[in-house]
């Protein structure tokens, strides 16, 4: 038994290492493809079958990969001694914390709603359609509203910090997958298991804690992954549309304005945003490994 378990565990490790290697290889592949296109693509862009499809391959539109990487080690502004990697890192860290707050609020809210919907059929019928509609509201339109609502909030000396609006918008995107995924999970336990709990005269809350919730974990975990990347998108878009300073979103628009003179600069921030998203989903993957550690491996694969 134990040897079988060890072999399985080893196999799991091998799979993870292989996945990590694959990820690095695919990054290299993208870099190579980028440079290849720069080598053969038309300098001024081009048309395929009359459609303007091919982007310009000149150094202004598509800087060399090494130029982008080298840019990290040069100062952010001429004459400043602050290297751009530290600025990007600080921005990504700022946004990461906002995304984390948004993710936490969103997941909690989503989970709460799903429990409410699982408890009361009426709640499901009354709430679910609104949840779906809520996700069709464009974030850009919502951002200024949240900022102005938040600005009017004064509760016992506490005022709404500006960054809170960005976190709330992250939460706004994050709660939806969790609510839907958890609802599906909470209702996934077979009838026989519910009858078993009934035969023990278990209360609704006991059934939630000991049956519904554990049964929902395999559904909640992937929805948390979606929520993690959604919260990053929400925060970055909110930073851009509310003009919040300090985060990676703000850096992206600032650097984009300098694209003509310093084309590699904006890419440093874009990669920073990508790394931020990776960090978030990495965090959830750790949670995934922890929560699913004792589940049948076939089911989680």
């Amino acid at each position, binding site marked *: *038994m134990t040897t079988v*378990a060890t072999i399985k565990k080893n196999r799991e490790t091998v799979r993870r290492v292989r996945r990590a290697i694959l990820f690095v290889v695919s990054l290299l592949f993208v870099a190579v493809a980028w440079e290849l296109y720069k080598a053969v693509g038309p300098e001024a862009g081009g048309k395929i079958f009359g459609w303007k499809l091919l982007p310009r391959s000149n150094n202004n539109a598509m800087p060399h990969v090494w130029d982008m990487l080298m840019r990290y080690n040069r100062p952010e502004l001429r004459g400043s001694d602050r290297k751009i990697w530290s600025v990007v890192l600080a921005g990504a860290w700022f946004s990461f914390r906002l995304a984390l707050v948004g993710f936490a609020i969103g997941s909690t809210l989503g989970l709460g709603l799903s429990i409410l919907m699982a408890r009361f059929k009426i709640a499901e019928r009354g709430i679910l359609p609104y949840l779906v509609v809520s996700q069709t509201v464009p974030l850009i339109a919502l951002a200024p509203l949240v900022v102005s609502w938040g600005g009017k909030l004064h509760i016992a000396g506490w005022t709404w910090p500006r960054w809170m609006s960005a976190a709330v918008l992250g939460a706004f995107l994050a709660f939806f997958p969790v609510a839907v995924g958890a609802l599906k999970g909470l209702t996934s336990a*077979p009838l*026989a*298991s519910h*009858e*078993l*709990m*009934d*035969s*023990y*005269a*278990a209360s609704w809350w*006991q059934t939630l804690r*000991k*049956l519904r919730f*554990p*049964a929902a*974990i395999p559904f909640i975990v992937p929805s948390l992954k979606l929520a993690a990347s959604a919260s990053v998108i929400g925060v970055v878009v909110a930073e851009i549309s509310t003009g919040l300073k300090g985060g990676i979103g703000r850096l992206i628009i600032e650097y984009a304005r300098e694209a003509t003179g310093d084309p590699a600069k904006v890419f440093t921030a874009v990669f920073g945003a990508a790394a931020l998203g990776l960090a978030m989903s990495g965090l959830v993957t750790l949670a995934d490994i922890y929560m699913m550690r*004792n*589940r*049948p491996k076939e*089911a989680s694969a």
Partner: protein
Amino acid sequence: MSAIEITNISQAFNLGMSNQVDALTDINLSIASGEFVSLIGPSGCGKSTLLRLIANLLVPTSGAIVVNGKSAKQARLDQDYGMAFQQSGLFEWRTVAKNIELPLELKGWDKTRRQARATEMLELVKLSDFANHFPWQLSGGMQQRVAIARALAVHPSLLLMDEPFGALDEMTREHMQSELLSICRASGTTVVFVTHSIPEAVYLSNRVVVMSPRPGRVAEIVDVSIEGERNDATRDNAVFFQRITAVREALRGVEMSDHVRGIEDR
């Protein structure tokens, strides 16, 4: 005192609708304390329904069920019975020991008491080495034993089983039958046991209730009464074969009135 008293039970699903199913009509059955009773009959004759009525997972359309001298509902609230089904129904996120502790947790037992009882039950079903394994790491037969240990964990006076050995191979099945008998003999547990197998019913039971379908009724009750303790030798006993024939005849009678399917003759 009788453990279960069933009087004039009828059960209809979708009552008053065009798809109404009369699952059971006019069932009367009295089961004595410590008795082992099997329910056998063609598929759809209402065996599971009757079991679920006793368990108070269903409320009968009419009639009364008294379990341990109280209403079926009170018996359920008091956890007077344990249940086991064809599918073991173990929770995959709990270890074997934790699965057995589940009914004890719901009774509010403290940790030490729970663990002591789980250890005791694991010894009973001979799975002590697997306490910290997860159900998906066990074979089907082992999972079924865990489910039975879970059903017995509260030391219920009554055990309700719906084809618990249906998914097992013949060898494991006979082994489990013997174990179940010795467990029940030792604890004086009353058992209501649903099966499709005539030999299984005869081997295990004091009485075999033969049911007929559409609507489900008690067609005949075969008194098994084999002398002495039951063991593997019983299976070669002449009386054993006589009783098997008796149950088969009773089922044939049922067959006359309706097409019999799903009865195994092994």
